């Protein structure tokens, strides 16, 4: 989402424009969701983090010093809340096994069901294989790509806030991770 547009929407929302708020949710909730998913929280934890972030954003709306950077504010707040969840879980379960945190839902989304029911079975299979290879990338690459694939695409500044990685590293790391994904797909003759 364009930063000047975000800034204008934040200012309008502060002034009581509910439609501007809705536009902010439409434009930036995929980024918040991507950051949540990048951290592999359980569905329940992920949903609570997502809500906490939006509740806090609403609460702080009039106090955000640089409205045009609201995307980075959301990304960074989401990251910190995710890290808190991971920290709390680590205290409850003294384990470093990432599988414990990896309880991604098996539920099929309505969109997925539509795809299954249509003739687009081949396309569906292609997407599933792409997703599977993506999921099996190293943790660092999986995190970065999960954030970058939000719609609309986040800026590198937002990705940096989401992941705690220097802005200057995002571009090279992205290139490297996509190359690795391409290699995995090629190796399996997929896509």
């Amino acid at each position: 989402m364009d930063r000047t547009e975000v800034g204008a929407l934040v200012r309008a929302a502060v002034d009581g424009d509910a439609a501007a708020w809705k536009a902010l949710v439409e434009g930036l909730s995929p980024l918040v969701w991507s950051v949540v998913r990048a951290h592999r929280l359980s569905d329940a934890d992920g949903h609570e983090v997502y809500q906490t972030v939006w509740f806090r954003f609403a609460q702080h709306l009039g106090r955000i010093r640089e409205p045009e950077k609201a995307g980075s504010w959301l990304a960074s707040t989401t990251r910190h809340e995710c890290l808190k969840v991971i920290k709390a879980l680590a205290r409850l379960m003294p384990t470093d096994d990432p599988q414990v945190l990896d309880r991604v839902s098996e539920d099929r989304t309505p969109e997925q069901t539509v795809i299954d029911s249509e003739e687009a079975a081949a396309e569906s299979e292609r997407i599933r294989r792409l997703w599977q290879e993506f999921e099996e990338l190293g943790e660092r690459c999986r995190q970065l790509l999960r954030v970058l694939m939000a719609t609309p695409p986040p800026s590198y500044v937002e990705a940096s806030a989401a992941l705690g990685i220097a802005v200057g590293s995002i571009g090279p790391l992205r290139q490297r991770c996509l190359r690795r994904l391409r290699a995995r797909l090629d190796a399996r003759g997929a896509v």
Partner: protein
Amino acid sequence: MNDMNGARFPDDGAEGDEGVEEAFVDAEFDAGLLEEELRRAAAVLDPVPAELRRLAVEAYALHDLDAKVAELTFDSLVDALPVRGATDVPRMLTFRAGELTVDVEVTGQGLMGQVLPPQSARIEVLGGPQAAAPVPVDTLGRFTSDTPPSGPFALRLRTGGDVIVTEWLRA
């Protein structure tokens, strides 16, 4: 690219598929195109759940220009060392707005706390844009609730002419 291996991202280096990378990808593959395919896949396989989108839209009701925000200044989860072997340790939180401090302790049994300096106040536990439950407060500003927060929560305090809301967080 090789300079990015090793010290900076040791977790990636340990995967052992570097050989695959070298062998199969030519130098000029279209990274932007692959990213776009991932974006389409994410929109189909892992979109923002509709119910969460709706909750975020409704969260606008929490935008309150008249309330002061009491910021989280201490969180035992972050600021205190864990006690070895101890489980079900209460979560200790401190919020501050100007001269006013609110100490809160959250356990599996509920929530208790104290307004400082001691003073009477009306306090509600908020659970979202629609949910607000008043809690009993004594004249010294001590309060208890035997319902533990079940998700994100905040406290809304009315004292004197002020309305103060603590920063939203997950219990």
